């Protein structure tokens, strides 16, 4: 269960460039729900995810993850509860470390790190098993540097790393946006499968309204740092992109141009 209460974030307070990125955003996500988040540029999607992960500290409001108030915790302190896949496929892994080392790093997320060797024999089978599930043949390349892999392969491994250990909340930050369409489809399918398999609570930000409706069971639209609308299954089923635009107009009383959002 994730509870977010009246979240406010302002960048550059008191300067001419003052930007109210989040203006009192509240949300409650039951355990195991897969939520997709859409919104035009500047709606506060990225700030929202950064606030949840701890990269951005909030001015006011509360973030409660699994009954724990994490509002004032730094990113590394809440890593036990929150895992994340970045938009940039190169951001989630370390290019100069091997696949095995990256996974060994991820298996210790939120746990104490000691002085025993990081790569352990008992991990290898688990790693190979999980890599095999990706269907990319990476299970034979544990000793290869991650930098040798393609963006899509690296994003698949980022996803694997984020879900290697259980977390209370998985954050996906437009994690397919920087990939070519075919790879993006592959990573999205993989995401759906992993979330379903581990019954994860997930929040996925996307630029594509189509994608937002196709995956998950609930869709939020952010606008000017607040929730513009929030629609769950079963009402959400069968909706199309124009319906979302209508919904926005009804809720906000203003029209949103199609191209304010990237449609795909």
């Amino acid at each position: 269960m994730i509870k977010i209460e009246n979240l406010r974030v302002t960048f550059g307070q008191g300067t001419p460039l003052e930007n109210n990125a989040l203006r009192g955003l509240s949300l409650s996500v039951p355990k195991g729900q897969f939520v997709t988040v859409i919104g035009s540029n500047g709606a506060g999607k990225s700030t929202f995810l950064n606030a949840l992960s701890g990269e951005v500290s909030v001015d006011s409001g509360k973030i409660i993850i699994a009954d724990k108030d994490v509002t004032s915790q730094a990113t590394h302190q809440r890593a036990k509860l929150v895992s994340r896949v970045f938009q940039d496929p190169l951001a989630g892994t370390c290019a100069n470390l091997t696949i095995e080392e990256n996974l060994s790093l991820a298996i210790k997320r939120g746990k104490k790190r000691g002085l025993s060797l990081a790569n352990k024999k008992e991990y290898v089978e688990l790693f190979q098993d999980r890599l095999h599930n990706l269907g990319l043949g990476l299970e034979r390349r544990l000793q290869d540097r991650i930098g040798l892999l393609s963006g899509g392969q690296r994003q698949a491994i980022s996803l694997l790393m984020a879900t290697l250990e259980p977390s209370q909340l998985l954050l996906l930050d437009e994690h397919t946006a920087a990939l070519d369409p075919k790879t993006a489809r592959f990573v999205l399918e993989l995401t759906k499968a992993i979330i379903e398999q581990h019954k994860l609570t997930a929040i996925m930000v996307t630029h594509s309204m189509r994608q937002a409706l196709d995956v998950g069971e609930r869709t939020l639209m952010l606008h000017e740092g607040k929730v513009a609308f929030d629609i769950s299954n079963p009402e959400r089923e069968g909706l199309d992109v124009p319906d979302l635009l209508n919904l926005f107009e009804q809720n906000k009383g203003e029209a949103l141009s199609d191209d304010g959002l990237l449609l795909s």
Partner: protein
Amino acid sequence: MSQIAFLGAIETGLIFALVAFGVFISFRVLDFPDLTVDGSFPLGAAVSATLIVGGINPWLATLAAILAGGIAGAITAWMNVRLHILNLLASILSMIALYSINLRIMGRPNVALLGENTILTPLDSIDLPYYVTTPLAFALIALVVLIGLVYFLKSETGLAMRATGENPRMARAQGVSTSVMIVMGMAVSNGLVALAGALFAQSQGAADVTMGVGVIVVGLASVIGGEALIPARTILLAIFACLIGAIFYRLAIALALNADFIGLQAQDLNLVTAVLVAMAIVLPRFKPSFKSSRGEKS
């Protein structure tokens, strides 16, 4: 070059291998350009020499030197991660401050260790000339540190440290406290450099407040030169390259200064150093173009 000069170069190279290990941690692992080194090297020398002259066991004195260096590195890192001073600037501030601190520790610009009991004294009882036993002893120390460092960088904590330097955002997302890693890494780095300073003072028979000038350049020359000689495919190779780089650098310097026909003298040392570092940085870049131009012809 005489045999004594050759072995002397090896000996100094082995001491500076420790500096190279330290510089490898700050510059390569943590991506933290650290000039504290110029202060922590004489700090190690000053602390160990002062304590030895004061009658403290030389091993304890050397340990104290390592601790002092570690604290210096931690303070530099702390200025960076807590006070948000630019990393390079923080290290320059430490370096400057250490100059005064080193003068305070010694109470004068230099401390002689002639006739004192150092960690090298037991070597006198071995029936071999000093210019053979000392390099052997330093080789042993460098090897022990090398093995320890390789193990550490392959440990869970070491892996987190490597991730911190390469991709701090990812490291934090994986639950690594990047601040703690930077402070810890800088402490280890400068502890190693202070150890080198302590050993250098004990083998040269004196600690001097100016002995740190240019140490960072020598350390960097060793790291970069080592990388040019040995491709750093694994952590073991990367650290080993630092060792080889440090020895190779000292030999190159000794060769340049001993080659009478070039006409270089001892005062040209820093100039030769700068030229060698520039060459070590630039030469590897010519390799690919050299290969491709050859490839076009065939």
